[in-house]
């Protein structure tokens, strides 16, 4: 059996053990749905400006948190060590863990989008770009969650560590404020955030237009962040996951 098939085995087991459980599914759906509904009730026309940002933010927080919770839980129960003892490459373990977290984020976001289209008349100008944004974002954020959690023992340590980058990303990525309205000095910083590009792809998927210029800019930038996370995460995992 190839390492690729083993990636799928790890992911399927994690979905069965963690991501398929009702509390996680409802959290992944209810959190963004309630936020979007609150904005919708206040401003029925204007909610569409914020909805892509909320979906992107939910991906960031949901995927980093869930990946981190699973890694720290498995470190505590010793089951992560069991994976390290199996004939698996580090890439296989990391990708298996990230794939299940990403599948969770994508599935909840797609269900949410269907709900928004059906009940709140959200347009979906480019469904393909919308899903691409989810794919690139969910992959990158899951890997970020693994990177942040593999060196720590407890969930709260992972959350504290991740909040050092999650909240600044939220601030600079145009989630609640269009990039065009940002102060001039914050504009260049926004381009350095993966969340900016993911939200922009989701926004293009919904509205069909982008503030970042041609579609290839957010698309290639988000893809580059994913590739970078794919390269960094196994190295960090190899260094930090083995017993001291």
């Amino acid at each position, binding site marked *: 059996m190839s390492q690729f098939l083993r990636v799928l085995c790890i992911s399927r087991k994690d979905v069965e053990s963690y991501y398929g459980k009702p509390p996680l599914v409802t959290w992944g759906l209810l959190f963004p749905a309630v936020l979007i509904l609150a904005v919708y009730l206040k401003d029925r026309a204007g909610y569409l400006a914020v909805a892509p940002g909320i979906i992107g933010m939910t991906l960031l927080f949901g995927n980093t948190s869930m990946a981190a919770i699973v890694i720290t839980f498995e470190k505590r129960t010793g089951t992560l060590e069991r994976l390290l003892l199996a004939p698996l490459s580090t890439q296989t373990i990391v990708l298996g863990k990230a794939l299940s977290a990403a599948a969770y984020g994508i599935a909840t976001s797609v269900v949410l989008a269907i709900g928004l289209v059906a009940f709140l008349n959200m347009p979906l100008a480019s469904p393909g770009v919308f899903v691409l944004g989810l794919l690139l974002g969910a992959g990158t954020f899951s890997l970020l969650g693994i990177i942040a959690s593999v060196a720590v023992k407890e969930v709260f340590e992972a959350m504290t560590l991740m909040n050092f980058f999650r909240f600044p990303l939220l601030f600079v990525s145009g989630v609640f404020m269009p990039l065009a309205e940002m102060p001039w000095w914050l504009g260049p910083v926004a381009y350095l955030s993966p969340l900016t590009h993911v939200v922009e792809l989701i926004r293009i998927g919904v509205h069909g237009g982008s503030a970042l210029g041609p579609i290839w800019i957010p698309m290639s930038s988000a893809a580059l962040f994913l590739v970078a996370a794919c390269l960094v995460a196994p190295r960090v995992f190899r260094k930090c996951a*083995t017993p001291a």
Partner: protein
Amino acid sequence: MREDWQEAQVAVRVAGLSKSYGRLSALSGVSFEVQTGGVFAYLGPNGAGKTTTINILAGLLPRDAGEVAICGLDVSESPVAVKSRIGVVTDSSNLYPELRCRRNLVYLGELYGLGASERRSRAGQLLEQFGLAEQADRPFGSLSRGMKRRLTIAAALVHDPEVLFLDEPTTGLDVPSARSLRQLVKQVARDRTTVFLTTHNLAEAETLADEVAILIRGRIVARGTVDELHGRVGGARSVAVRFSADVSPEKAKASCPSVRQAGRQEGMLHLEVAGLHSAILELSDLARHEGLQIEDLLCAPPSLEDTFVNILDRNDRAGEGGE
């Protein structure tokens, strides 16, 4: 594949293995070979470096120096290939608590690359062999400690490994569970799997091991069969004696030059003696001198525990002398 390296008769080869954590040297120049088949016991006090050795052999830790080969494969050069040929049971029962017992075994079969029908039949076979068939559909987390330990060992055997590493397999188990587990380990060894055992239970090592290595402060200080180790500590033997009235261990030790160590257990004096013949003569003299009679006298070869303690004492004395 098994046959290739079995011809060489060496399952595990370690040469000049060293590992440090910062300034602390955990292993320094450890060398040994484990022959194919049978049980190899790797013993030592806490902090001796046993778990570090297992972690290096299992590919979890990098080594600083030396060579480590399992089934003829270098652990650093071919970690995935080595891991597919070994099974490791750590000192904790670390299966997935939320998964059912059978699902745990099937999942591990997937990770080790077994085909769908093979992993299902192997899971069923192991559940039967380890007496857990009735628990197959219970979550692992709901099992008793003994059952968890049994399933953890079964899980390490799911891919029929050529070498099985067992780290403290019976720690924390009650007597019947520990005994049943030892029977299973014997059975595993009979089925051609080489067992590399670390344990603090020296009676267990004595029962199971074909060969023993003793590790102290990161160095192998003794190695051989249990009988060979007994021979190396000067043929000491154990004697249990009951006099018609109380004689203190201190008195026995002071009166009998052959007695190396003395203690009391269940109303009898338990003595470790250098020579059996001279010890019996000295004990007879002691009884005559004190006006007592010897009511009971039992002689036994030394246990592995006696030999282990003796080797530890010698090593401590050598260390103090060296310092």
